[in-house]
C-alpha cells in the first residue's frame, strides 16, 4: 500500500506547503509501513520534482499534460484519481489551500474517502483512525474519526515540521485520460502579482491598518517588509478603502495566514482580523493605543507612533542582515 501526496507548484517551483505535506506523509508512512508516492501535474522540471525525495517521497508520478498547468479543479481531480489508482494508494495527503480544498472535495466523492481538513497532527490509530484538526478558525481543535477504508488528509500550513529525509525519488511519467468535461471551466486569463512574496506562502508578514493613515505611507510598511524578507498584508478597512489590493487583505473573510512572524502595524485587532492571523507562531503589534485588543493576542508589543517606530525598526533589522 502507498500514501499518495498531491503536490502543488507555482510555475514549476514546489510549494513549501506541499513539501510539508510530503513530510507529513513520510512520517505517517514510517508508522504504517507504507511507501510515499507524490504526484505533480503540468510543467515542472525533474530536478524540482526530486525535492519531493528529500522530503521523504520514494517515487514521483509526473503527469506532464500542459493542459494541467492551470489549476482547473475538475481536471486535477480526475488526474489525481488516476494517479491514486496507479499508486495503489489507500490514503491521499495534500496541503490545505484554495486549489487543494477544491480538488480534495471532488476526490472524496470519487474515491469514497472520508476526509479530514485542517489536519495538525499525525493520526492516532489506537482504536480507530482519529485525526486532530483545527476548527473555529483556530479557536479549538477536534478529533475526527475516519471510518472509511480510503482516507484524505488536508494538512494545515505550518502545523507539521518540514523534515529533511535526504532521500532521492524516482520520477516516473504517467499518462492519464482526461475528458472534455474536465475542462468545462475555462481559465481565460491570470493576473499574478509579480516579484512579490505570496501572502499565503510567506514566512514573515508585515501588515498595516488604518493607523497608517493613507496609501501614501505604505512605503514604511514595504521598507520594513523588504528588510525582513516579508510579504505585505493589510486589514479589511484598508482594502475596502482601496488603499491596498484585495488579495493583501488578511482576516477571516480575506486571506488566512500562518507565518512564523506576523507584524501588525496600526491594526487595532478586530476579532475578524485575529481570526485570520491566530495561527501565526509569533505576533508583534505596534499601535499607539495601549488598549488596542490586538495586544492581548500578541507575543511582543510596542506602544507608540508607527511613523516614528517603523523607520527605526527597519534600520535595526538592516543592521543585523
Amino acid at each position, binding site marked *: 500500500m502507498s500514501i499518495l501526496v498531491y503536490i502543488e507548484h507555482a510555475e514549476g517551483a514546489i510549494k513549501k506547503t506541499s513539501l510539508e505535506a510530503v513530510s507529513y506523509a513520510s512520517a505517517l508512512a514510517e508508522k504504517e509501513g507504507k511507501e510515499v508516492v507524490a504526484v505533480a501535474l503540468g510543467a515542472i522540471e525533474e530536478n524540482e520534482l526530486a525535492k519531493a525525495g528529500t522530503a521523504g517521497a520514494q517515487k514521483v508520478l509526473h503527469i506532464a499534460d500542459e493542459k494541467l498547468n492551470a489549476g482547473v479543479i475538475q481536471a486535477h481531480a480526475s488526474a489525481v484519481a488516476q494517479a491514486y489508482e496507479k499508486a495503489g494508494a489507500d490514503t491521499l495527503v495534500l496541503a490545505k489551500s484554495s486549489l487543494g480544498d477544491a480538488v480534495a*472535495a*471532488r476526490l472524496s*466523492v*470519487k474515491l469514497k474517502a472520508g476526509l479530514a481538513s*485542517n489536519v495538525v497532527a499525525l493520526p492516532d490509530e489506537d482504536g480507530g483512525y482519529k485525526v486532530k484538526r483545527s476548527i473555529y478558525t483556530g479557536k479549538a481543535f477536534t478529533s475526527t474519526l475516519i471510518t472509511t477504508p480510503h482516507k484524505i488528509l488536508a494538512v494545515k500550513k505550518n502545523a507539521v515540521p518540514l523534515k529533511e529525509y535526504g532521500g532521492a525519488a524516482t520520477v516516473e511519467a504517467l499518462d492519464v485520460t482526461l475528458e472534455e468535461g474536465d475542462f468545462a471551466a475555462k481559465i481565460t486569463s*491570470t493576473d499574478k*502579482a509579480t516579484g512579490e512574496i505570496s501572502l499565503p506562502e510567506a514566512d514573515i508578514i508585515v501588515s498595516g491598518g488604518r493607523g497608517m493613515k493613507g496609501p501614501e505611507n505604505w512605503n514604511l510598511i514595504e521598507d520594513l517588509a523588504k528588510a525582513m524578507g516579508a510579504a505585505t498584508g493589510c486589514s479589511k478597512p484598508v482594502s475596502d478603502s482601496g488603499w491596498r489590493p484585495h488579495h493583501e487583505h488578511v482576516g477571516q473573510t480575506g486571506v488566512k495566514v500562518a507565518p512564523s512572524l506576523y507584524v501588525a502595524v496600526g491594526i487595532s485587532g478586530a476579532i475578524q482580523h485575529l481570526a485570520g492571523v491566530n495561527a501565526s507562531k509569533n505576533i508583534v503589534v505596534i499601535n499607539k493605543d495601549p488598549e488596542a485588543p490586538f495586544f492581548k493576542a500578541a507575543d511582543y508589543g510596542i506602544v507608540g507612533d508607527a511613523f516614528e*517606530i517603523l523607520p527605526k525598526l527597519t534600520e535595526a*533589522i538592516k543592521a543585523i542582515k
Partner: protein
Amino acid sequence: MKILVCITHVPDTTSKIQFTDNNTKFDKNGVQFIIGPYDDYALARAVELRDQTGGKLTVLNVGEAETEPTLRKALAIGADEAIRVNAFPSDSLFVANQIAHYAKEGGYDLILMGRESIDFNGGMVHGMVAETLGMPSVSPVMKLDLEGEVAKISREIEGGKEQLEVKLPFVAGCQEPIAEWKIPNMRGIMSARTKPLNVVEAVSDEAATETVGYELPPAKGAVKLIDKDNVQELVQLLQTDAKVL
C-alpha cells in the same frame, strides 16, 4: 433562472468557543448563531442575479429545527423560499449528499454557497456537491456575472486572481467582494413570515467521519511590551527568543 443558495448556521465570529459533556459537545450557552459570513456573500449576489434575471431563489440549510430563524433571515434578505433538510450536519460529505440529493431534481442553473463554513472551516461542500451532480465547481469566487448561459468569474488564487468562463449549471464557493452583504429591511422581515419554509427529511447516508471530541488550545501568555525607544530589544528578542530572524 433557478438559483439555490446553501447556507450554514454557525456561531457568530465573536462567540467564545467552549465545550461541555467532557469535551464532547459544543456549548451553545450564550452563543448567537448567524448565517455563515461567506454564505452571506453568496446570498447577496444571488438576490442581485435573481432581481436582474427573474426566476426563483431558494435557500437551503441542512440542520435541525433550531436553524429556522437563520433561514427566515435569508428569506428576509430576499430568498423566495427556504428548505430545511431535517438532519444534524454531521460531516461535510453528509451535508453535500443531502444538498446534491435535493438539487438533483430541481433543475437549478446556479448553486451558490460560501467558500467555507466558519465552524469547521473545511471548504469542501461545494466541490463535493459538484462532483456528485457531475457539474463544474469554482472556488473561491470573488466576482460572478452572467452573460446568457455563460458565467464570467473572477477567482482568487494565491498572489493574484484568475478569470474563468463556465457554462451553467455549476457550483460556486463564494467570498467577498462578490457583493455587499444585505441587511433585511422591515418589509423583508414582514414578507419573510409568509414565505414558504419547507422541511424535508434527510436521505439516509452512512457517515464517512465522526467527531469524537474537542479541545481548546493552551492559554496565550501575556504580551511582552518593549519600550518604543528601544526597538533593538525587539529585534534581539525576535532573533534569540522567538528565533524567527
